[in-house]
């Protein structure tokens, strides 16, 4: 039964991936793809938190930190180098390294839940203030001005590796992002199926028991956090390339809370939920921005409250429960 559901899920994910990568570029206009690119970039970011929080049990208020750092690293490096291959790698590596440092700082001292949330939030806000205070021509890295709250504009795009003259923009960036999302999603699914992944799930289920069986929870959590940091950094790279722009806003409380909201709307403890929740919330926000029915905050806020009251664990688990109930009804009372 479980395996059947897994297989159905895998199939659904495969179909979704094919639609995203092959069908959508063929049937939509470029501006639609441009918008979808952003949703998918955010979906990658949401996946990083779904992984770190839903599977690692680490309530990170700092995913925005790694996201923003990825974006800034990419922007600074690509402005200096002109070619994007190394900057992309740096944009993954630097946040992963910071995650490693922060994780070592946190997990070797067994800091947990809300305290961890506050530390990661504070770390993100430190970047917010420091980069925000970098207006002025004295704050530069190489040829890249940091620009304070105005951010770094005109970030060059990602290019075909080795060919700076061939940028990956619009439709191509969409395809690239969709592939990256598929790889990240598939990669995380695969990781969960490995021995490492089983231990990750075990730690989430019962950290103490996992330790008593001889699993070093700290190194596992560190690995989870570093992987999550790298994925968030990659999303940040794509974000900076997508908008040709990055600003300290990505380090703000509002943005980091938004990531948490995506994951919760979709359902904590699932990977697909993060993607669905993120795309849904962003699409609704965009739609509200176009339709201007009412104050966005008002509608969105009310929506979240209602959602929590009716599907407390999020959309994907809520739908699963609903399906199970319908199936039971179909079988009739026993």
């Amino acid at each position: 039964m479980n395996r059947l559901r897994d297989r159905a899920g895998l199939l659904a994910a495969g179909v979704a991936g094919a639609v995203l990568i092959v069908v959508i570029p063929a049937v939509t206009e470029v501006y639609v793809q441009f918008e979808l690119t952003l949703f998918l970039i955010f979906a990658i970011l949401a996946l990083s938190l779904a992984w770190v929080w839903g599977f690692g049990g680490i309530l990170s208020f700092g995913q925005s930190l790694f996201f923003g750092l990825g974006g800034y690293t990419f922007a600074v490096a690509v402005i200096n180098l002109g070619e994007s291959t190394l900057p992309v790698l740096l944009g993954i590596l630097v946040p992963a390294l910071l995650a490693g440092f922060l994780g070592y700082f946190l997990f070797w001292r067994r800091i947990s839940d809300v305290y961890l949330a506050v530390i990661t939030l504070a770390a993100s806000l430190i970047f917010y203030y420091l980069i925000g205070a970098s207006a002025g021509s004295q704050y530069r890295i190489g040829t890249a001005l940091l620009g304070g709250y105005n951010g770094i504009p005109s970030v060059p795009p990602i290019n075909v590796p080795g060919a700076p003259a061939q940028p990956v923009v619009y439709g191509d960036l969409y395809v690239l992002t969709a592939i990256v999302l598929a790889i990240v999603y598939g990669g995380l699914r695969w990781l969960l199926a490995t021995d490492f992944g089983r231990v990750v799930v075990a730690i989430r289920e019962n950290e103490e028991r996992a330790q008593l069986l001889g699993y070093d929870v700290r190194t596992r959590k560190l690995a989870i956090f570093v992987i999550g940091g790298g994925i968030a950094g990659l999303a940040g790279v794509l974000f900076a390339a997508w908008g040709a722009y990055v600003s300290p806003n990505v380090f703000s409380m509002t943005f980091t809370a938004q990531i948490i909201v995506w994951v919760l709307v979709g359902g904590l403890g699932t990977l697909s939920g993060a993607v669905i929740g993120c795309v849904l919330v962003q699409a609704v926000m965009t739609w509200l921005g176009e339709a201007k029915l009412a104050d966005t905050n008002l509608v969105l806020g009310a929506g979240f409250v209602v959602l929590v009251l009716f599907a407390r664990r999020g959309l994907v688990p809520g739908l699963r429960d609903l399906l199970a109930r319908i199936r039971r009804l179909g079988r009739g009372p026993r």
Partner: protein
Amino acid sequence: MTGATPLLETTSLTRRFGGVIAVHEVDFQVGDGELRCLIGPNGAGKSTFFRCLSGQLRPTAGRIRLAGHDITGDGPHAIARRGVAIKTQVPALFDGLSVLENVRLATWRCGSRAARRRRTEDVLATIGLARQASRPAGELPHGQRQWLELGLVIAGDPRLMLLDEPTAGMTRSEVAETADLVRRLAEGRTIIAVEHDIQFIRMVADSVTVFHQGQILTEGTVDAVLRDRAVRDVYLGHGRDAGAC
């Protein structure tokens, strides 16, 4: 009982909680292959002592040696890797995972995938849960949860097993089955068990250590200890106090 080097040895092991001394300068030894029971009234410090041995608690003072290695202050995973496994008082399981997955997680020391699969099947057979293999652990009834945890403990083939009240909450027949199981497990292994059930103790134990107020009151064979006047005072005295309220 007096081997060349004891498998486990504590010297002046102490653990404080604020002003309360839960374990007070305990010198304790257990030899290789021995099956020892710890008894004592509630609050005597047995569980705290166990949690120090498993690394879940860091001792305030004193040393713990396992087969001559100093393991004081090591984390629980490091101690587990040295071959110490603990069954906690309230079964600690991976509730969301199936019985099979639970056991398989505990077999990581068994080498190849095939070896691990074999080991998993053996363990399931030993604890009699082979037919429940695909049920989530969270759905098992209480007695089976205890057995599953025992299964997790034995799966890694530990040198030293710490069992904290393995029969808690069990029916008479389940206690007998458990005692049987523990006796079979004891072959070639060292076991320390915290237990209240005298029936169980008589069935399995080689020797008994009595804890009282964080210290060792006495040690000896089952019969000798149960005849000990001081031990009876401790137990019966407490019994009367409890009845007075």
